């Protein structure tokens, strides 16, 4: 087991009142798993990711990464935010090397590793260009490589495809999953899109309305050997989609 989250709670302190964002959140994620977290808007998904990244301390409970309690930001955890946040004053290559510079890991081996990833994932030709000239998909790949190059064991993906149009989003999400699997990383993806979570994941966790709790965990071993884009044609797909939708308990008035 790579990550263990046990009875984690988080309470926001605002000047007016306290707001409970997470309550008794417990789950585990194994080495190499790609797990999705779905839940209604405002249920605390991004809060949970910030807590897992070590940016915020949980107000209760414990988080263990490879058996060690997580108390602050750890180089073993990589975080991909909703936007790519590439710096326009840096080239693609310099953007990718940003984390290495901060963590003082910019040595020959890591520079070569960055070059390998850029060559592997179609960024080599644009390595010395500013990111403004990249397509949406290329920008996301650049952001992922920037995260991967610092060698994190565990990746947190906070709706990284939400800024992309539908077709690009499908292609890029499958692309990103494939890179994560090839690099043998473990990932937790936060998404609003149930269909996307079924396409990409080994496991789906469903969160309740705020304060967020894990109310269901779906093991997708039945889809294990099916490529993401073909999962929609599987007989289980529709029933799983309906079940998760029901669990989300979203009502429109």
């Amino acid at each position, binding site marked *: 087991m790579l990550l263990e989250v046990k009875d984690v709670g988080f309470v926001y302190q605002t000047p007016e009142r306290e707001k409970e964002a997470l309550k008794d959140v417990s789950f585990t994620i194994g080495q190499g798993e790609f797990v999705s977290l779905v839940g209604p808007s405002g249920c605390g998904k991004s809060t949970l990711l910030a807590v897992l990244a070590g*940016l915020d301390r949980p107000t209760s409970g414990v988080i263990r990464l490879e058996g060690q309690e997580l108390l602050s930001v750890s180089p073993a955890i*990589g*975080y991909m*935010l909703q936007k790519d*946040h590439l710096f326009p*004053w840096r080239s693609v290559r310099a953007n990718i090397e940003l*984390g290495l*510079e*901060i963590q003082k890991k910019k040595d020959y081996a890591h520079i070569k590793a960055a070059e390998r990833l850029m060559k592997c994932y179609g960024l080599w030709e644009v390595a010395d260009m*500013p990111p403004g000239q990249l397509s949406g998909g290329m920008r996301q790949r650049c952001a992922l490589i920037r995260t991967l190059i610092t060698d994190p064991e565990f990746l947190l993906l906070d709706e990284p495809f939400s800024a992309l149009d539908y077709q690009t989003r499908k292609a890029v999400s499958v692309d990103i999953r494939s890179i994560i699997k090839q690099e043998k990383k473990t990932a937790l993806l936060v998404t609003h899109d149930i269909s996307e979570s079924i396409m990409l994941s080994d496991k789906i966790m469903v969160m309740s309305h705020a304060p967020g709790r894990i109310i269901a965990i779906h093991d997708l071993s039945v889809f294990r050997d099916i490529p993401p884009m073909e999962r929609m044609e599987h007989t289980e797909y529709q029933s799983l989609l309906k079940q998760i939708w029901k669990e989300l308990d979203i009502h429109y008035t």
Partner: protein
Amino acid sequence: MLVLFIALWEILTAQRVIDPFIFSSPSRVLKTLSNLSENGELWKHISTSLIETVSGFSIGTASGILIAVILWWSPFLSGVLEPHLIVLNALPKTALGPIFIVCMGAGTGSIIAMTLAISLIVTILNVLNGFLQTDMEKVRLLRIFGAGKVQIFTKLVLPANLSAIVNVMKVNIGLSWVGVITGEFLVSKAGLGYLIVYGSQVFKMDLVMASVLILAVFALIMHLAIVMLEHFVRRHFDLK
């Protein structure tokens, strides 16, 4: 447009449609400049104002940016000092002139102090505002990589605000000239501000117009230097 204006000015004064004694004329301005140049006075006055402006601009911009960095670094100091800075910014700075003269004497020191009074607070407030408006999600990204405050500043806040800093420098060039000319009105015995005051007191409007013309030329040259710096910064940092 400028050529047309100068031609029109010359024709109207030659035809006495407007009074050349009050409004001077391009030919009289040129003659005045030539006389000043011949007796060596021209460069003395230009260099005096130029040295004061460049000194005031450099000290005002550098110390303004430095103070903005310190205030960005310390939210406590920023919280304590910002209300005072806002009050100082609203104060008409020429009111401080007599205080500078009493404290620093009637010389270059007072003129540079006047320049600083006019440009420093604006620099601090504008640069600090730019620093504080840095995208917090990008700050979050750097924190996830384990960046401390120094790295957040050098990798993100400073490069993200280079464009804003160049804009502040553009404004400061104008403000520094205002400070120097105001200071020279009050205390100096040399400089373009002195020439303007002297010319108006003895009713030599040719001298006043010639000084204003030199002032405009040098303000333009310094502005163009900052525009070139801006092009350099944009080219090298790909700022949008």
